[in-house]
């Protein structure tokens, strides 16, 4: 009971940071408190959200997945080509993209756990290879897909939320449940806290460490679908550096880079902070250098706030 209270409190803190940020932009930018702004933010964040869920799980297990940005581009490319060149039904094209992401994750996972290669290096390799494959698949060209795929990003009439957003929200809930209420989640935390101790107490760590990277790959594949839906096109240069945004969102949300500690809900609030920041700064129209400085400062401040709380 005490532990549960503590968790709520943890996320409350970062939630307050989000509210402060929203209030700041509300005062500074004249049209920030509008339905348009809210829609804009909710439409653009599903891809980062699902990728961040995967990243958070991997970080909790004590690993890292640097390949997610490239895998997003690869999946988007596979979807675009499958749909426009091979003229497969959208649902099959989408499935192929997600499976491509899962395969990348499987390679990461097997090399990282069964072959004992450092996950940092394996996923760094996949960051390179995945981006290369994305260029190969698309022939380095942006593939125009059109309105059929964009319906995933368009608000459903009556609810005002897009299918992409609803799916990502559902996955946040599901992943938080899996992390806190299932054996899989408990073992991930145990392995992330101390892998050696987890082994001694009888957990076979390899399957868990493989699965968590497969999940991250599948989610990055889904992120590719969401990115393509958002753009109505597959961009082989999409999601450059997305891995860093996902890591930032996870850490802002209280996930430890050392493993063993983290929260999916917190990471989602981290994603909201990053999206609100991007949107608010664009509305203020500040110059590019200033944008970058402010983004950096907010990330650092958010983590500082988190550390201060945990004392």
């Amino acid at each position, binding site marked *: 009971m005490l532990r549960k209270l503590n968790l709520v409190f943890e996320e409350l803190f970062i939630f307050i940071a989000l509210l402060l940020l929203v209030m700041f932009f509300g005062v500074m*930018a*004249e*049209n*920030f408190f*509008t339905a*348009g*702004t809210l*829609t*804009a933010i909710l*439409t*653009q964040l599903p891809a980062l959200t699902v990728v961040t869920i995967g990243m958070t799980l991997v970080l909790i297990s004590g690993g890292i997945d640097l390949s997610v940005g490239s895998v997003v581009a690869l999946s988007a490319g596979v979807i675009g080509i499958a749909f426009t060149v091979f003229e497969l039904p959208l649902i099959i094209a989408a499935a192929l993209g997600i499976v491509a992401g899962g395969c990348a994750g499987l390679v990461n996972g097997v*090399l990282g756990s069964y*072959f*004992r*290669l450092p996950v940092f290096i394996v996923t760094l*390799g996949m960051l*390179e*290879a995945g*981006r*290369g494959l994305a*260029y190969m698949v698309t*022939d*380095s*060209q*942006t*593939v*125009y897909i*059109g*309105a059929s795929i*964009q319906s995933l*990003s*368009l608000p459903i009439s009556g609810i005002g939320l897009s299918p992409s957003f609803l799916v990502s929200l559902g996955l946040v809930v599901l992943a938080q449940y899996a992390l806190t209420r299932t054996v899989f989640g408990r073992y991930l935390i145990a392995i992330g806290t101390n892998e050696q101790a987890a082994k001694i107490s009888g957990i076979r760590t390899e399957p868990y460490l493989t699965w968590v990277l497969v999940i991250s790959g599948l989610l990055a594949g889904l992120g590719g679908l969401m*990115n393509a839906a*958002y*753009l*109505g*096109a597959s*961009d*082989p*240069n*999409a*999601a*450059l550096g997305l891995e860093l945004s996902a890591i930032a969102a996870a850490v802002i949300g209280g996930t430890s880079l050392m493993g063993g500690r983290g929260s999916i809900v917190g990471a989602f609030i981290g994603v909201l902070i990053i999206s609100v920041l*991007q*949107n*608010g700064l*664009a*509305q203020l*129209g500040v*110059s*590019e250098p200033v944008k970058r400085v402010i983004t950096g400062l907010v990330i650092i401040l958010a983590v500082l706030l988190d550390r201060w709380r945990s004392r």
Partner: protein
Amino acid sequence: MTTMKNVLSAAILLLLAACGSEDTTNSSTVDGGDATRPRVALVMKSLANEFFVNMANGAEAHQAANSDQYELLVNGIRNESDLAQQVSLVDQMISSGVQAIVIAPADSKALVPALARAVAAGIVVINIDNRLEPEVLAEYELRIPFIGPSNREGAKLVGDYALQDLDSGSEVAILEGIPSAFNSIQRRTGFEDAVAQAGMKVVTLQSGDWDQTKAAQLTSAILSQFPELDVILAANDNMALGAASAVGLAALDHKVTIAGFDNITAIHPLIESGAVVATVDQFGDQLAIFGIEYALEVVANGTVLQDRETPLELITAASLQAN
């Protein structure tokens, strides 16, 4: 079993390392062979970018058709801002003894010292794509001709077309590329020229880093801030695509006129549907060829070095239909 694993891991690491190093130079020789023909080195920016891929493909096709005239070495760098790598490529080309270097510099200043070494070694150097800074060239007392289109004029051309039928009180947003890039500055200036001439107002100027997703996110934010926005001028087609998808998602009650630059294939459906009104073709696949032809001319006859402007064409729904 453990040895097996070790061997396999070593093999994979080696493979990764090999991929890494191959990627970084990205080199291909088209037709090696006899020494009587001049050897021309084409030094490109990122060969992962559609624009430069087309440029390189155009050059290779040209060489294949004129293989009795010259030999071609195509090299690209890994990412567009990796200056150090491009400098070392130039040095490698100098030591490999080519007669001419045709270069799309990753930076308009930083490449000059390396190119000065090439000129000192008696190599003909031709500048394409991104113009070298005249002041820096003057500092090194170099004359390196620039063969290419005027990005500023191209942007003015497409800007004029996009703005021509609009009310003079229209609100315009400009999406520029990476703010420090010469092309981006030229295109932005061309857009600003067109807006000023039409007597309109730029309500916001922001950088979409040439990136589609980033441009889409920026556009949704801009539309919340300026709900009456009429025009978006994007410094490349990828950003125009991003802007168009954001405008589509925003479901506005008025039309937003969008224009792009580069004429990539993916923009055509949007021009046909009217979501984007126009773009500019600077014949990217021909740019390297113009440079190579000029280099061969200089090698053969020692022509006086002069800048040359290459053609630009406005692409609209009408011109797409005509083809």
